[in-house]
């Protein structure tokens, strides 16, 4: 029986460990059957529902196909179409500007609140604040968006009623382009900052307190301590958090779909919404696949750039 060198103490804090030294030869016969039977569901399943579709998407991007008639090869026609189609262009611009603002906001808010929650306070208060702040994560984005669509309603929404008390006139939150963009942004960040917040709490908890004591003795407090101690030491977490936040935000769909259906006009239409609309409303499956591939390439490029930049800015003590 071949056995990996085990690591001490089962922890679910996932640390990617390299495989133990590979043991000689193959598993004995009785085990070999077990190996293949145990791998089958995952390997066959991912092959069928992940690998084949990825390749399928690539192939399909070069065809015109409406599911009814036979697929027709059109080369880069779909890519030419998506570059020149104003709706597709606007939706990508919307998505990119949304990602820039949403991720900045999400990281800033999450880092500030994580630092405050991790500072000195009674344990029960810390637990309360931590729980309250990540609660939205367990709700459905569709339900949250429904609730928010009522809160931001122009005539009877609570937000405008409260603003009215302060003499601010009724704002067309979901009926004007700028207002709709702001609401989609706020609703998205409201629901998702908790994830980034949890990551930062983990990162901050790992900083040894001696570092703070030492820097205090050196006369670093408040801002300078944040700038020269906290920030460099959470920078690895910052990198991971920003990569994940960007990947998530690039795929935004539920909030604009439920809140505005992409409107008014194309003001809140996003890349994934256009994938959905071109495939399942206009039955242009080739175009939808091409847009999907552009989005995937965008995700890979942005992630690669971040890891390149991180070499200059991330501090691994």
């Amino acid at each position, binding site marked *: 029986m071949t056995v990996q060198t085990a690591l001490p103490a089962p922890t679910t804090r996932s640390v990617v460990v390299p495989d133990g030294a590979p043991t000689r030869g193959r598993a004995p016969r009785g085990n070999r059957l077990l190996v293949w039977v145990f791998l089958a569901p995952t390997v066959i399943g991912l092959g069928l529902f992940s690998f084949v579709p990825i390749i399928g998407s690539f192939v399909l991007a070069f065809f015109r196909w409406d599911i009814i008639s036979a697929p027709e090869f059109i080369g880069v026609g779909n890519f030419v179409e998506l570059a020149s189609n104003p709706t597709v262009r606007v939706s990508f611009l919307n998505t990119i500007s949304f990602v820039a603002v949403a991720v900045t906001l999400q990281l800033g808010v999450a880092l500030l*609140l994580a630092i405050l929650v991790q500072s000195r306070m009674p344990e029960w208060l810390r637990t309360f604040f931590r729980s309250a702040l990540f609660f939205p994560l367990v709700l459905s984005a569709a339900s949250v968006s429904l609730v928010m669509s009522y809160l931001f309603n122009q005539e009877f929404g609570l937000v405008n009623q409260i603003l009215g008390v302060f003499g601010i006139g009724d704002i067309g939150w979901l009926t004007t382009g700028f207002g709709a963009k702001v609401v989609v942004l706020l609703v998205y960040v409201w629901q998702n900052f908790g994830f980034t917040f949890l990551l930062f709490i983990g990162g901050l908890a790992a900083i040894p307190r001696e570092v703070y004591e030492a820097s*205090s003795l050196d006369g670093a407090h408040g801002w300078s301590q944040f700038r020269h101690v906290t920030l460099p030491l959470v920078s690895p977490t910052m990198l991971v958090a920003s990569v994940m936040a960007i990947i998530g935000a690039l795929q935004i769909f539920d909030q604009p779909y439920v809140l505005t259906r992409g409107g008014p006009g194309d003001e809140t239409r996003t890349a994934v919404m256009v994938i959905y609309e071109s495939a399942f409303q206009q039955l242009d499956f080739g175009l939808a696949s091409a847009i999907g591939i552009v989005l995937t390439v965008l995700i890979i490029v942005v992630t690669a750039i971040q890891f390149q930049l991180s070499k200059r800015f991330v501090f691994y003590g």
Partner: protein
Amino acid sequence: MSITSPSIAPVSETRAITAPHSTPPAPVRGSRRGLATAGKYAVLTVAAFLTLAPVVWTLITALTPADVETGQANVGLGAFVDVFQKIPVLLYVWNSALVTLLIAAGQMLSAAMAGYVFARFDFRGKRLLFGLILATMMVPMQVTIVPVFMLIRGMGLADTLLALIVPMIPTAFGTFLMRQYFIGLPPELAEAAQIDGAGPWKTFFGIYLPLAAPGLAIVGILAFNYHWNEFFRPLILTISEQNFTLPLGLVTLQGNLGTGSVSTVLAGVVLSMIPAALVFVFGQKPLREGLTAGVSK
């Protein structure tokens, strides 16, 4: 990169403490430190209020539906009764529960089996296979949805609940998580079991699987949380109303009502929040660990 250069500045009496873990003396009333502490609690309280207020407002509105004739708000469960009359809520809840629980169970079992093999056995091509499995996590679901939709149609599963369940049972992330977990369990157990005459199957199902329960809980809770709430896939893969899941049904209800009773839609939202809230209360630790797993250093 240097941590602060030692400065010769005199240590002032009033230090703002925003640094975690610092141990200041008791706050002096009226000093800057007192202000900093007050500011800290003010910011956190406002943040917690903004986070919880929409949820509380949803509950209140669902419990105080306005009378159709008079417009008078009455406290009661009228809106919940209304939801059951307007849409087949029980059917949606049943669909959501069936889909979510079967995916969670399927992911727990398949991820445990694959993770176990990757953690404890050697075979040719193991690293490559594991790398390919992890690579599938990089591609967004929206990109593969069109071919998946066609595969589903080709399998004759179009517009069935199985279309929502089957593609989601294999899980790369779950496999990764369970592999980590099994690596952490002592290999001596297998040797002892072998001496006692237990075969490889019995060793897994009788010894290792029960020990991996905490890891399984994480996989199950994450799957439950994600699929109970998901909207995009059901929107595409279900066509007839009898296969709708709860989030889909609620959005449809809102569309049908237009400016109808807000309380009715929100009563439905409250119903959909109950399982999520239960997971939050009883599964908070595994949920937190799962969300940040594979990310922490």
